[in-house]
């Protein structure tokens, strides 16, 4: 990581040995990751989903919110591969559009958690002492409340909306990023290059941003990948409870919740959205596991 990223793409005319030396650590990580078949499969599924989410208007056969009472509660057919819901809306289209919300919520919530948690952790780890103690005790307080209960309380207070859902899930994930970053910051802050930066008069903020944080990247990336999976699950759970995304928006958790009352006669209304959530979360978890193994080969069993 101390190498410049540029070396990755730098033209190299030297012999293989020399080229091997010049490869950045990220290249090494990628090489290890590529050998892990499960991780590659997980990554492919995640990439595929991002593509589906981006191309939703092109891929979806119908408008996800187009109701058609004549066609309500139709089982899967060639016309509607995943059936239609109680308003006659095409389930496949709704699931395709639902991927947008799930991925969006997952990434933004983790972004909120990782940025604020990361900053708090870096400050705590860098300065140490009372400030560190205070920050970590605050994180203990957040950890003492079960994640989903905390998220429910926050959504309850702020009201149900997409943004509030992301804030609630993000805050409930804060402590894990704070802890991870703090742990790395503690090991990094005594290093010579940090002292060197201080000696040349760099400000604390600059040292934290330019020297501490980049060296905590590996655990942050792993935590975030697994965090997105957790965030998608939490957001879906909140929507399922009626405290997240509200109908008629096509979101997997709330689709599951509204399909629930037709469990007996139209089980596909609950089966497919749940399957979609499971596949995304499973893919992210497998990818995250693989990433951890490639970033830290020591942990590999």
């Amino acid at each position, binding site marked *: 990581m101390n190498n410049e990223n540029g070396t990755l793409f730098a033209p190299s005319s030297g012999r293989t040995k020399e080229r091997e030396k010049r490869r950045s650590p990220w290249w090494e990580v990628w090489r290890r990751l590529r050998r892990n078949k499960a991780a590659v499969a997980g990554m492919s599924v995640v990439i595929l989903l991002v593509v589906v989410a981006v191309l939703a208007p092109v891929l979806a056969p119908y408008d996800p919110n187009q109701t058609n009472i004549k066609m309500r509660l139709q089982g899967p057919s060639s016309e509607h591969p995943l059936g239609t819901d109680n308003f006659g809306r095409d389930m496949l289209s709704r699931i395709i559009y639902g991927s947008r919300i799930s991925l969006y919520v997952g990434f933004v919530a983790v972004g909120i958690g990782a940025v604020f948690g990361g900053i708090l952790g870096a400050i705590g780890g860098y300065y140490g002492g009372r400030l560190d103690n205070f920050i970590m*005790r*605050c994180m*203990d*307080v*957040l*950890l*003492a*409340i*079960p*994640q*989903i*209960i*905390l998220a*429910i*309380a*926050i*959504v*309850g*207070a*702020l*009201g149900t909306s997409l943004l509030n859902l992301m804030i609630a899930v993000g805050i409930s994930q804060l402590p894990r990023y704070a802890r991870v970053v703090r742990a790395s910051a503690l090991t990094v802050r005594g290093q010579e290059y940090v002292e060197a930066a201080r000696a040349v008069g760099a400000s604390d903020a600059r040292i934290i941003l330019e020297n501490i944080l980049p060296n905590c990247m590996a655990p942050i990336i792993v935590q975030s990948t697994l965090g997105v*999976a957790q965030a998608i*699950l939490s957001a*879906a*759970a909140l929507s*399922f*409870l*009626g*405290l997240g995304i509200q109908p008629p928006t096509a979101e997997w*958790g709330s689709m*599951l919740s509204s399909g*629930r009352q037709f*469990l*007996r006669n139209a*089980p596909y209304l*609950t*089966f497919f959205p*749940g399957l979609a*959530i*499971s596949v995304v*979360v*499973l893919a992210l*978890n*497998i990818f995250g*596991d693989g990433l951890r193994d490639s970033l830290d080969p020591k942990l590999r*069993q």
Partner: protein
Amino acid sequence: MLRYFLKRLMFLIPVLLGVSVVIFSIVHLAPGDPAEVMLGPSATQEEITNLREQLGLTKPLYVQYGIFLTNALKGDLGRSIKSNAPVVDEIMERFPATLTLAVLGMIFAIAIGLPLGILAALKQNTWVDALCSFFALVGFSIPNFWVGLMLMLLLSIYIPILPSSGFDSWKNFIMPTIVLGIQTMAVIARMTRSSMLEVIRQDYVRTARAKGISDRLVLTRHILGNVLIPVVTIAGIYFGHQLGGVVITETIFSIPGLGRLIVDAIRAQDYPVVQGGVLFFALCVGIVNLLVDLLYAVLDPRIKAQYRAAK
């Protein structure tokens, strides 16, 4: 030992104080006036003002918090806006169902997760390992509310052998237990596996084998004790997580527990119940963590010895 216990107990106090501040602020940030909610849309301005006065809502927030805290320390969490019953009574009425579920879920998680992890580690890099590990990863990834609905579909609708709601017979607990425990089960299986793999490679295990002790004895006498320590940690952490999971489980299977109480209270803007309920959850999590710490000392003679020496 007692000193260790008391010291850990002291740690619980600032955390609970913190939780009370957090939940009090969250609840009081909420838009909507409790007095208006209580009286309904037909209330006059005067009635609302009177009730606000009566509830102490006109006082500054920190004064309100002070009152809330002193009352809470006396075991009084206020009265529910909806039912006018004391919040403590409502919580205590609902708590047995939630506790039963949480304990059953944990037993399920350990009973399945531990053997699964041990098996995977003993057969490392075989298809058995791959299958166990994949099973654990799936258990960790699928939404538990979906598992609940699919179980219900299978066992209450297609093959109607289990009731889909209520909680009067042991049959009512089977599906909720699985739903609640499945994630913890997966985490315990993963933790057990990696902990086993680490312990198996230790010198003392090799020595034990070299002495000619049977594999079974090596496993039970030499390996398991050390494997259990990280597993207990993770089980403790996940017990708190699982307590949160009751919200979902109780909703799906219509079990009148603490989780449902909080969700209903949030929908009804019944803030004393939300406040009291969340605080009570935090208390439970704290007590569980305390018990886990004590369990360590029992499992790990090194910790016990440390505290003996310190005395």
